[in-house]
């Protein structure tokens, strides 16, 4: 009890730890600024215009869909009864059309885009043979400058509406057709919380490695062992102190981050829709994020402890990124399920899909999907951290301190 408390005090007394915390605070501040940047609240008027535009766009898509089902030769005509108001920007209307069935790769990077819809969205990925989900291009991020044809629509692409019931097209919605960006706490916070977990993990890795690596380099480990010769106890106390510190920092960071984002949403965006369900979901993201940070920090701690050098942990991380995340990923697709990034993604996002492309000699490719569940990802990352921590403890217990 006493030793880990002393170690905790030393951990937070270190200059590097304080610098890392400053870095973390800066990054969280940048996230908050990015949330508010360019965002404004949506007025009733904005909403009405967007709803009109969305209705027009859906109508156009249905027309294109029906044209495609009817044979696809004729150019579909725009439904004048659902014509958008002249104030609706043509660019928004044009950009919202589903064109590409992009693979929705889950990511920890915060996105300002709307949550992907899973309603009947036409797919153009006929060759893949899979019914992929369409990823909309939100109106808020529209950059297209093309002008929609007046009185006629772009003819459907071959296979674009195959298997799609035209009556079920419900996309885009008014949110997608907004002509300005509105930061939505409900929609964007889960992804931002996952990104925060990645930041915490990075800080944890660096602090964990530096915390013990510096002690070996300064020679103070030997001094400490003259006061507490039970090495396993010393090791556990240090690891426990690191965990305790990281949990405290993680909880505080999340609390401050959530509060700041909610304030931004309340002032400049949409702070509504924070239901109990969302609160629970964010709470679980926090738990998973802090657990991830602990595991990654334990990895850095263990490597630096075993090798007795902070730089070794940094070197190991770089070697892993170059050798595995880049090299292995390029060499063998199947190895992706063993990569840390995929498993971390699965852990943070409650599972992920890994898309593997298998092409034959004729150039025809089929897509294979590997499902990685949250628990698989968590067990993999946690197991790796546990193995490293145990190996480092054994090395520390047995090696001479000279």
């Amino acid at each position, binding site marked *: 009890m006493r030793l880990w408390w002393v170690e905790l005090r030393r951990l937070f007394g270190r200059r590097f730890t304080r610098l890392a915390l400053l870095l973390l605070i800066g990054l969280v501040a940048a996230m908050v600024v990015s949330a508010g940047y360019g965002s404004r609240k949506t007025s009733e008027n904005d909403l009405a215009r967007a709803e009109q535009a969305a209705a027009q766009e859906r109508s156009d898509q249905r027309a294109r869909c029906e044209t495609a089902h009817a044979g696809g030769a004729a150019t579909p005509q725009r439904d004048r009864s659902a014509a958008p108001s002249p104030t609706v920007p043509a660019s928004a209307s044009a950009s919202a059309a589903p064109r590409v069935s992009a693979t929705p790769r889950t990511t920890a990077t915060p996105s300002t885009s709307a949550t992907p819809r899973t309603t009947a969205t036409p797919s153009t990925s006929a060759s893949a043979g899979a019914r992929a989900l369409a990823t909309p291009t939100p109106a808020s991020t529209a950059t297209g400058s093309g002008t929609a044809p007046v009185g006629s629509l772009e003819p459907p692409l071959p296979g674009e509406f195959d298997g799609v019931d035209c009556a079920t097209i419900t996309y885009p919605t008014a949110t997608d057709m907004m002509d300005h960006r509105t930061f939505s706490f409900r929609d964007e916070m889960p992804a931002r919380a996952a990104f925060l977990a990645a930041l915490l993990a990075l800080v944890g890795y660096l602090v964990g490695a530096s915390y013990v690596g510096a002690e070996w380099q300064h020679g103070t480990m030997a001094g400490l062992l003259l006061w507490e010769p039970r090495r396993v106890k010393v090791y556990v106390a240090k690891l426990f102190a690191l965990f305790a510190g990281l949990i405290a920092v993680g909880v505080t960071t999340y609390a401050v981050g959530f509060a700041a984002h909610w304030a931004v949403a309340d002032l400049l965006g949409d702070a509504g829709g924070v239901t109990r369900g969302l609160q629970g979901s964010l709470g679980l993201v926090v738990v998973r994020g802090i657990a991830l940070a602990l595991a990654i920090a334990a990895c850095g701690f263990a490597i630096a402890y075993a090798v007795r050098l902070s730089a070794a942990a940094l070197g190991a991380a770089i070697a892993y990124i170059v050798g595995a995340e880049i090299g292995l990923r390029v060499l063998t697709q199947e190895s992706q399920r063993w990569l840390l990034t995929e498993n971390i993604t699965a852990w943070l996002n409650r599972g992920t899909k890994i898309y593997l492309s298998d092409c034959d000699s004729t150039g025809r490719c089929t897509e294979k999907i590997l499902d990685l569940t949250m628990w698989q990802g968590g067990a993999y990352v946690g197991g790796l951290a546990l193995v490293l921590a145990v190996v480092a403890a054994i090395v520390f217990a047995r090696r001479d301190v*000279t």
Partner: protein
Amino acid sequence: MAAAATRLGSRDTVPASSTTAPAIEIQGLRKTFRRGLGARHVALDGLDLVVEPGRVHGFLGPNGSGKTTTIRALLGLVRADEGTMRLFGHQVPEALPDVIRHIGAVVESPQFFPHFSGRRNLRLLAQTAGVKRRRVDEVLEIVGLHDRAKDAVKAYSLGMRQRLAIAATLLKEPSLLILDEPNNGLDPAGIREVRDLMRGLADGGVTVLLSSHILAEVQQVCDSVSIVSRGRHVVTGPVAEVLAAGASGDVRVRVEDAEYAATVLTEAGLPVRRDGELLIVSDVADPSWITQVLARRRLFVSELTPIGADLESVFLDLTGTTPVPGRSGQVGEPFAAGLGAPPRTDGKPPPPPRHATAGPAETPQRREADNDGQDRA
């Protein structure tokens, strides 16, 4: 520092079952360090050491002789390959957690967190062992660092770091103080303060093991001394006995007619040589006999001084490290003929030094070494 040492009497006592045991008892300690490509270095080759409680005990040996490795093994930092070690009767490293709170140690150069202040470094250590906070300021006062306690350790000189290290050892109010080269970097006043501190502690019942190369210092402050060489024990005993064992038996004689006196003494069977106006008479068991011989010929002695050995010459002699003109010494290798070839890899013990018979620490290994030495002689 010295005056404050008298305030150190409130320390915890060592576990009662072991108060009569030697403070340190080491037998047959062996340690081999493995290096790259299968290379091995024998640091300790069956070393023995006994330190009685309540004494200041000097621990001497040339560079690379195994002093620091012995201390590290004793404190659990290095795992010994063979041998037994006891601290106050408790076998270590097994019982080290029980006795470590009675032991203060400085091993080689003192190491602290450079960006923390001296006081903060000590407070962290004190909290580790549950030492009261006010004790930190007490020991800082003792070592003369109270006014610089707020400064970061990186701003300290080597001598100040050494003082801080000594302060750290005093935090626990130890029963055994192990100091490895405590005078490194200290100014003359600091050296005297450390010397007085050690004496004060010993007077208060603390056992001090002092590893040092400053032999004059050891000679002044230590009650007993052990000399090791190349990982083996060479001699142990009270300083006076070790010095006596290293004494040459020569006597310096001043007499008015030195020429005639030399003739008389030579006729009496004593080896005599001239040293200016003085005579140096060798192999004299009882210097008064010189007076008697010369007085019978009406030669009256105005000075009769046995030439004693100092610790430095005894040390150099025993460890075979007396510098030889025109030859550079190598760490771990003696200068003296017959002591040069390291016997580490063939398992045979090294040839013993000439004076290995002095001292009370008689062990089987020691007797073997003595016999070997006599054979060679």
